[in-house]
């Protein structure tokens, strides 16, 4: 059992928890993830690590509430426990002195990107970061990312915060303006990472994406998470989770990510019928939720 020692709703639909998991906290590196199982009936699912504290033995996860499993996780209160937490899994990010590094992030990718920025900055890289959200109200942890960045930008998908644009638009403009960027790291939903990869491709700037696809064990045993990179099949859990975004077959990835949507919807409807009151504070917007599920 892994106790939740802190829990807060950061913005609508995004919840941040701090969990007691001493082994994971001890070994965690930027870029890694854990597999969680909330309760006895629960499924196993991957979550990127947003932070950790080796001394206190805790890990932090900021997650987007989308289906049954994340709802169950969001419904837990401080003092409650998660049944299983396994990790850290996947290969750590290769932290080197690249030069000018552009970090693009959004949603659950913001936490991991802050840890990555810290590690890259320590290696002497210049950090240019760009954070995205649907709207100004959905932004969180700007200060934390700004503190570890040499250049910090925010973009939002509506007109609530200056010009309407997404991270991929920013990347395109930034590179077109002739700014020197040696490598890009993108972390967010698959769609965002795909768009960022597409934006940087014409400029030939290597773009690393973090793919935590649908997994069961997370240790290379089932092949559920497999993706096509170049011409090869790779397992996101053990070969990744980081891959060259220009080589990833995004159509195949998104198609595979969508494969359980009917089951996910059914499972979620049943859970919500009995448990909706547990997640009032997550402030779900029914219409948005449906839309997200349709988009996978």
């Amino acid at each position, binding site marked *: 059992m892994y106790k939740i020692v802190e829990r807060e709703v950061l913005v609508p639909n995004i919840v941040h928890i701090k969990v007691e998991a001493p082994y994971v906290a001890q*070994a965690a590196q930027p870029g890694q993830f854990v597999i969680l199982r909330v309760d006895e009936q629960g*499924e196993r699912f991957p979550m990127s690590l947003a932070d950790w504290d080796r001394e206190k033995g805790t890990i932090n996860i900021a997650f987007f509430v989308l289906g049954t499993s994340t709802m169950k996780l969001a419904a837990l209160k401080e003092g409650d426990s998660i049944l299983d937490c396994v990790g850290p899994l996947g290969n750590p990010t290769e932290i080197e002195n690249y030069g000018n590094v552009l970090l693009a992030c959004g949603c659950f990718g913001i936490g991991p990107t802050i840890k990555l920025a810290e590690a890259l900055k320590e290696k002497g890289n210049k950090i240019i970061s760009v954070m995205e959200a649907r709207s100004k109200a959905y932004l969180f942890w700007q200060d934390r990312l700004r503190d570890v960045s040499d250049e910090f930008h925010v973009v939002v998908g509506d007109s609530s915060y200056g010009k309407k644009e997404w991270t991929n638009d920013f990347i395109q403009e930034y590179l077109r303006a002739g700014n020197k960027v040696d490598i890009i790291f993108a972390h967010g939903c698959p769609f965002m990472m795909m768009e960022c990869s597409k934006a940087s491709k014409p400029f030939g700037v290597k773009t690393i994406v973090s793919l935590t696809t649908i997994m069961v064990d997370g*240790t290379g045993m*089932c092949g559920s998470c*497999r993706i096509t990179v170049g011409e090869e099949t790779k397992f996101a859990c*053990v070969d990744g989770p980081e891959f060259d975004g220009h080589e990833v077959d995004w159509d195949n990835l998104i*198609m595979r990510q969508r494969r359980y949507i009917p089951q996910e919807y059914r499972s979620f409807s049943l859970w919500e019928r009995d448990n909706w009151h547990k997640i009032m504070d997550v402030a779900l917007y029914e219409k948005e939720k449906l839309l997200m599920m349709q988009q996978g």
Partner: protein
Amino acid sequence: MAEMIPIKERMQRDQVQMPEQDPQIRGHNFNEVPTGYTKEMAIYEAQRCLQCTPPKCVEGCPAEVRITEFIQKIVEEDFAGSYFEILKTNNLPAVCGRVCPQETQCCETCVLNKKGKPIAIGRLERFVSDWARENGVHEKLPEIKKKGKTVAVIGAGPAGLVCAADLQKMGYDVTIFEAFHASGGVLVYGIPEFRLPKEIVRYEAGEIEKLGVKFETDFVAGKTKSIPDMAKEFNAMFIAIGAGAPRFMEIPGENLAMVYSANEFLTRSNLMKAYRFPEYDTPIKIGRKVCTIGAGNVSMDSARTALRLGAEVSHIVYRRSRKEAPARIEEIAHAEEEGVVLNFLTLPIKVLGDYETGEVTGMECIKMELGEPDESGRRRPIPVEGTNFIIEADMVIDSIGTLANPIVPRSAAALGVEINKWGYFVFDEETMQTTREGIFCGGDIARGAATVILAVGDGKKAARGIDKYLSSGNSLKESLNK
């Protein structure tokens, strides 16, 4: 006590068949297929045993079960005594009684096999252990003298569980590290409920825990902690992580959404209980026409699970002939009775489907013929040109075997643990020690994908090897400081 019958009559009696669920009914439920012997059946079967000295059957048993002794106790109607006889060498009797291929082991060497009717040793083993479980009979162990030495066992599969049990009984303090949330390894994620109820695995693992073995689940050795770091904390280490990485055909269309590895399909259904979705959250897809590639025991498990999940048609496609199929004869028979269609001498070359939706529409195959024997001694299948055809299918399960999972070998390499070209550990057949002193291995990570009972045998052998190593005053953690 039941009567001892004359030798002549023992030779004349036929093997007692075990009752089974009707194929028409069992094809739609996950309850166990064979329902087990009754007391009367068990005694009647046990009476047939010739009580040979020395017993030939034991020679065929990797777990060295005291077969004649436990069978004699059945005749004496001392089922508890019988159970204790088995436990002297094997702590997974209800598991082994169900999943061992007895026909190539104890039953093959049984003297009565010459007449084609060996004692049904596995069924008797199953009866005794089921009886003990149902009647709450537990092993009473004499006070064990602690040796004050610790052993790490990596992997709670059959090899790890048995090795841990043996070492704990010898007086060592054993901790098992398991990556999954439940112990049992392939017994819980691979073998389906209808062949091996998970409750039984949980029970026998629980009995091993009662011996004092500590279980650390949710612990991925090599990730959660590196092998060198773990080695610093123990006097010896046994690595039994299985061969869990799935192999794919590497043909076009395999990354369509409706293509599964047998590992994924079975893990979802067995370990995660997707067959009880939506009561359990883990989803599983099922097609109407399911095609499983391969003809091993895992392939039979997949094809039969598909039927139970609601597939109308379940095909098996195998490139060699029936004779070469690696599955147990009994498993193939069970699958066929339930309606699984076997297609021999057929090689899939392409999965057809829609790349937008991920749906599968069929599988292009080519007919094969058998040529000269290959390095495995089996006749090599050769494609017959111009015989391409399409099998209609909306779901494909790849079940062509597994490979070594590299997480632990990579982490152990720092200590000088060598692997062979297939990624399995190099080890000493006598002691099961790897190329690094103090680190032992067994099961599939030592010999490649094999059976539960060979893993059990390795676990026992390694326990002896570790005992010898530690008794000579050696220690893994101390050797690191040298």
